[in-house]
């Protein structure tokens, strides 16, 4: 079992003919993901390798039955690309693009509230069900199929670090999700925690957060009330100075709120096993999940 993506995922790629789009589409295909279509306006009829390209998401969906989309469209047009996918009824939308204006994402989020589509990202590495389906830019080989750990994170390479440590401890993953480092995103910690709690194969959860906002505090409250599986947590940014954006648009301590210390305290109070030293996260998971 897994959450959100599996062997039934039929993926289209918006922005498939760009440099990033091409490269990562090939990586996904090589991993075993069923990539059925690409979308680049004005390039209908062309092919990227064997994958047919369409002008619009609606055309691509009608012709191929795609039910998921991975978005590599540049920031000025990315919000529109998400809305186009949602409007065409795509169930799972994974937006990799970094640098979408907040105002655009606020409109997208309010629009998606009227739709059934699930958005992951933006500014994220994507989602992978190891051994089955990779929708994103994460390196496939560091993952280990079969569970028991579910991973959810706001980061990219930090997630790879965590997954690598799990794999080295012999702990496989059911699904790993990067929810993105932007202040306004689609799927949040709570959505993933609820799905992992409901997934029988997931027996433990790793949650990787960082400074900024209150998503980790909200997640901690949810865990206390609804999650019975063990959760190991990590928060990046203990040493981040206040008022500065630490690379991710959403990673900022403002006016004393959104601090790593506050998040760690909230997580501990909710019974989460908080790992304060990244170097020891794999070992801690091995001890907690055994």
């Amino acid at each position, binding site marked *: 079992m897994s959450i959100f993506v599996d062997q039934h995922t039929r993926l289209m790629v918006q922005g498939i003919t760009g440099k990033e789009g091409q490269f990562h589409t090939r990586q996904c295909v090589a991993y075993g993901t069923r990539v059925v279509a690409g979308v680049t306006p004005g390039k209908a009829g062309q092919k990227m390798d064997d994958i047919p390209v369409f002008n619009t998401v609606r055309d691509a969906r009608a012709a191929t039955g795609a039910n998921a989309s991975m978005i590599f469209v540049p920031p000025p047009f990315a919000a529109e690309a998400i809305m186009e996918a949602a409007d065409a009824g795509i169930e799972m939308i994974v937006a990799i693009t970094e640098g979408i*204006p*907040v105002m655009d994402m606020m409109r997208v989020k309010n629009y998606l509230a009227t739709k059934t589509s699930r958005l992951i990202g933006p500014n994220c590495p994507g989602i992978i069900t190891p051994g089955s389906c990779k929708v994103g830019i994460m390196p496939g080989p560091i993952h280990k199929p079969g569970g028991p750990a579910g991973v959810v994170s706001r980061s990219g*390479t*930090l997630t790879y670090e965590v997954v690598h440590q799990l794999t080295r401890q012999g702990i496989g993953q059911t699904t790993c999700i990067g929810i993105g480092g932007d202040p306004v995103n689609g799927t949040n910690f709570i959505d993933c925690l609820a799905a992992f709690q409901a997934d029988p194969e997931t027996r433990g959860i790793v949650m990787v957060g960082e400074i900024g906002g209150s998503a980790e505090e909200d997640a901690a409250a949810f865990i206390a009330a609804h999650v019975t599986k063990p959760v190991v947590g990590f928060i990046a940014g203990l040493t*981040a100075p206040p008022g500065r954006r630490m690379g991710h648009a959403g990673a900022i301590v403002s006016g004393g709120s959104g601090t790593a210390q506050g998040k760690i305290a909230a997580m501990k109070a909710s019974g989460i096993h908080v790992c304060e030293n990244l170097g020891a996260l794999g070992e801690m998971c091995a001890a907690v999940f055994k």
Partner: protein
Amino acid sequence: MKIHEYQAKELFRTYDIPVPKGGVAFTSGEAEKAARDLGGFPVVVKAQIHAGGRGKGGGVKLARSAEEVVRLAGEILGMTLVTHQTGPEGRKVGKVLVEQGLDIVQELYLSIIPDRASASIVIMASAAGGMDIEEVAARTPEKIVKVPVNPLIGLQSYHGREVAFGLGLPGGAMKPFLAMLGRLYKLFVDYDCSLLEINPLVVTRDEKVIALDAKVNFDDNALFRHKDLLAYRDLAEENPLEIEASKFNLNYIALDGNVGNMVNGAGLAMATMDIIQQAGARPANFLDVGGGASAEMVENGFRIILSDKNVKGILINIFGGILRCDVLASGVVQAARQTGISVPVVVRMEGTNVEEGRRILAESGLNLITAVDLKDAAQKVAQIVA
């Protein structure tokens, strides 16, 4: 991106948002002229820096004569202003805003911010203007009116009424306040603001509503559609190394420790800073060279880290995923040769082709110390700078 108060007020004027008459001055002579142009005293001399709390720090003064303007402007210009937002090192003042004094009967607080959790634009207002709003929020939250606006429908009249009645405005001020709020909201959306704050917003004896202060920040990710704002950038307000890094699209933030570090990815970079501190040393910077760092990025990163004279050791932490470790190792070696590295460098890399990468580093003949994992890396670099 942050701008100065005088620039924010320029922007306000283009939206017909009432602000006091005033002019910016770089010398005390210019300040005197700006004061005389206002045609009367008292006037207010305000330090222009990218930080709040200027009044408490001694950067805002009332002047009753031209002579006083010259004296006060002379004192403020060139001073190092320390406020709760500047940090203990303070900020050097290079310009002042000289404004007419107003006959104020009420001071209010008004701000517009994007709320990340609800994806709405929130208007916050309080009758307790002129105070530190975070203090008001903590002590007397009932004194703050909060009205969320769904960006899909935009500001409606009822939103404005909720704010205005919540503030208990005097009757005559109601209409100008509502008109002003509409314009502020428009400016906020038009320019992709990440913060618009007026503290205080004042009601004058003749029931005019005027933005006595103006603080506006913009979403960096939206600057591509606001090229006109780039003229407002003030390099004197930024760290020189951060300016240099931004030229190469490197995400660099200067800190005050002595362990330079270079990492691919923002989350991992923060976690690396944390682990340096946990090992007993202090990070000199945050530097994210991007999820797929190239040799060129690594080289520029090296140069910038080494221009910080406090740096006594460097930790490179790269998780090679799509980008293989052997390619990265070659990049590090090439960059180290070209830059001429003067301090010990600990390299921790992990991921695809890591053995080959470590071999390249070991055989380079350079003073590169290989670490087996994160803990090991942090301990090694902490020992070097101890």
